[in-house]
């Protein structure tokens, strides 16, 4: 196995892609709309539900408007990257696989202190929660590992393991630097050359320029649209509007337009939509006859339980 630390950020990503592709994962792509985390990507949120096995890995550029610091804080960005893996059902050697993936990007685990520290994950916006850990490498949190228990307010049928790597952190660590800004992305470019100005400008938008009135309007419009489409069982477009709704909320929060008391109400509204999307997705899979179940007899049996209901 290659234990040479990967030299650049993109080499590290390529190594992760290679590793998980070899494990039989679909190599997915980022969702083409603003999401706060890879969990929002329908390849995670929707496909975590139901009886169909599913293994996927992808990079997710995640937007958290209020986390921006105008590129001045070496560890905080409003737009950062996650490497997201979903293994459904979680294989019994999932932790071994995860550890092997760290070795694949050049971390020699024999020289480090790797620890699984309790961290129970919950997303009130998505109505999702699970139990798992923050994974520590020499005291630094590098990964969030979660066994999903509920998604969209619905119990999962096959328990998936979600592995979310904080790849900028791992990258800076491997490269021996302290600031994301110094991250060597490719042979020729560092992070600050490619993204720093963008980061500043986005922060200006998020904290100063974003049109509050427009985002309130958008939130309401997206909410209505999501509900309308999901009621017609148009799952992918309907869920797309749930994502847009959630981003509008994030923008409003960054602008300080939502008070602490109102916050819970807005989160509840997004959660309601997420639940509708989850239910619509399950109806869709039933209608299609759970085509991604590879065990034919299990598939037929599962369809019988649907028919019996």
């Amino acid at each position, binding site marked *: 196995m290659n234990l040479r630390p990967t030299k650049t950020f993109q080499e590290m990503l390529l190594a992760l892609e290679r590793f998980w592709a070899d494990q039989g994962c679909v190599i997915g792509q980022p969702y083409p709309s603003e999401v706060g985390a890879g969990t929002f990507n329908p390849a995670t949120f929707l496909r975590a539900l139901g009886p169909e096995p599913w293994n996927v890995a992808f990079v997710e550029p995640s937007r958290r408007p209020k986390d921006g610091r105008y590129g001045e804080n070496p560890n905080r960005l409003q737009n950062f990257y996650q490497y997201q893996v979903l293994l459904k059902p979680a294989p019994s050697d999932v932790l071994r696989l995860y550890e092997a993936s760290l070795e694949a990007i050049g971390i020699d685990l024999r020289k480090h202190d790797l620890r699984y*520290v309790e961290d129970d994950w919950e997303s009130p916006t998505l109505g999702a929660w699970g139990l798992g850990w923050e994974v520590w490498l020499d005291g630094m949190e590098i990964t969030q590992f979660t066994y999903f228990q509920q998604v969209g307010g619905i119990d999962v049928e096959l328990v998936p393991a979600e592995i979310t790597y904080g790849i900028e952190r791992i990258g800076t660590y491997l490269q021996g630097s302290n600031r994301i800004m110094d991250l060597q992305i490719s042979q020729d470019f560092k992070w600050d050359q490619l993204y720093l100005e963008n980061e500043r400008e986005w922060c200006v938008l998020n904290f100063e320029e974003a049109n509050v009135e427009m985002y309130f309007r958008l939130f309401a419009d997206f909410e209505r649209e999501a509900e309308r489409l999901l009621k017609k069982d148009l799952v992918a477009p309907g869920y797309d509007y749930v994502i847009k709704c959630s981003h509008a909320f994030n923008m409003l929060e960054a602008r300080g337009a939502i008070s602490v008391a109102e916050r819970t109400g807005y989160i509840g509204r997004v959660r309601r939509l997420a639940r509708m999307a989850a239910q619509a997705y399950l109806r869709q899979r039933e209608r299609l006859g759970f085509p991604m179940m590879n065990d034919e007899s299990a598939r037929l049996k599962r369809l019988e339980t649907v028919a019996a209901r």
Partner: protein
Amino acid sequence: MKLLLEIGTEAIPAGYLPRALDELRIKAEKALGEARLGKPAVRTLGTPKRLVLEVSGLSPRQDDVVRDVQGPRTDIAFRDGKPTQAAEGFAKKNGVVVGELERVVTDKGEFLLARVQDKGRVAPEVLMDMLPALVTSLSWPKTMVWNENGFRFPRPVRWVLCLLDDAVLPLTIAGLSSARDTQGHWLLGPGPVSIPHADAYQSALNDKGVLVDPSERRARIEAGLLAAATRIGGRLVPDDGLLDEVTFLTEHPSVLDGRFDPEFLELPREVVVTAMRSHQRYFAAEKDGQLLPAFLVVCDGEWTDPSMVVAGNERVLRARLADARFYWNVDRKKGLDALAEALSGIVWLEAVGTMGEKTERVANLVSHLGRLWFAKDWKELEPGASRAARLAKADLASEMIKDGKEFTGLQGVMGARYAEAAGEAPELARALIEQYLPRGANNELPETPSGTLLAFADRLDSVVGCFAAGFVPSGSQDPYALRRAANGMIRLLMEKRLHISLRQFVRYAITALPDSVRREGLETEILSFLNERIAFFLRERGMTYDVVEAVLGADADDPLDALVRAEALAKIRASEDLERLVVGFKRAANILKGIDIEDLPGLTHPDFLKGAAPAEERLFTSILETERDLARARETKDYPAMLTTLLQLRAPIDQFFDDVMVMSEDPSERRRRLALLAAARALFQDLFDPARIVIEGETAKVK
């Protein structure tokens, strides 16, 4: 025989483990106690990745026992000397023949009796039944499912080892069949380890880097910490809670030491320790009372060259301390006054307003309470107390606290450190910390006058504000911890010996709330809530239920006064005089039910005693004397003396009831006697309510 059961898991949260291991041991002891397998010794061991039950000294089989089973009545079991179906059936059911049945006579008649031999089962059989149920019965704060089996546990179970001496005891837990394989330490001895005999388990795992015994790990960590502290030329700052936690975060602990830039020591000690402790679980070291620029980290493993591990941890801590220093600088630059002003932008409760408004209300309460409690010293204390009140919550607007992460727990402390850094009086800094005292039932109380005033005023305002906003505690629901706040208020009054009129101050605090909040019934609700907290305090002090009720039933406006009365009453509670007096009083109260007291003749009327019996005259005199003596003792609030005085009434009342009939046919006689009873009853008024005192044998009548 020796049994060894090991449940292999993925890392279970450190906080769950000590209780789980206790529970497993207690339940195993109980189950084995009933299992008739000798007198085995039970021990539990464990790491984050394994729960271990070890039982030694098991008998290979259960003892045989003889059990008596009672059957049908003999007159039904036998007809004409021949066994009936009832007798045959009973014998068959118990595996004997009719001839072996015996007879037993009870008070319900004569019955058949079967002596049943219970053959003991072999140990493996008994244990195979017992162990899976034992593991399933463990209770956990949170559990999960991880596969289609649906078994619930805090983290996935990955293997089960179960040996009885050298044989695998076959059982299934969480869908896994037991075997003789366990797993070594992930770094020091990775991979499966086959255990030949239950006796060999601990040493075999030891060879593979796992210390299964928590006490062994704890000792190793303690020794490692002391050695590391010496190595860096200082002393360990002890932290037992953290020691417990890291014991259950590791399978093979070792202590490494790292450094940080001494420049960070300009930060307050609490900030540095929090940065190290709360997230990273590092221990601190000090020399001559000063922190050293170093940390001790408890790792899971051992390395010939730990430089990468140390460097990694140093890097993480540097980032955390750098965050803290950034906050520290920004906040100091802003200054406490500016931060206090920013409180008007922070909502406390939506319905009641901002932290800025709360600050103003609290400052007002402080000045009223200060005048009440510190009287002539108040003039001198006032400037400091009023500044402390103004700055009390300023740190809530600081970056350090607002960040919402590990430093949030330092509220109060940060205010104090910013105050010191800005050259405020030490007394003021102290008060900013003390406003949060007491933190719990046994926690210390504030010492400075300003701290005491703030601690009380802030809690009073919180209780009143939350009640107004509708956050009234009920059952287990108390999101704003108002019970704790009110317990703190009562403790302050009682233990600092402070008098107050709760009604007056609650009313005042309500008036200060914004006009928009509801006021209807608020005062009564809050006073009855506080009343419960006073009762709670008194009962915690060992007062009996009825003494507490009696004292608070008379008057609960000044809790300290109630405490003194309760102590005096408790002292004479057991005396016969008191019991007799109470019985007399209750009799009087019954008779007076429905009587209009106002309508009765006055005792001061010159002709009052005209035609009165000697018993009436005696009671009359006693009432006047008691009234006079009470008034004298009341001047010095000498409650023990007042209660002793009341006891003077006992004999005259007894005689009164013995000698005269109150409800006489003669209206003027009747009215005179009723007036005497009413006057006697009035003497108890603000001392205690005798109706609530429970007299033995009379319980049922008391409400």
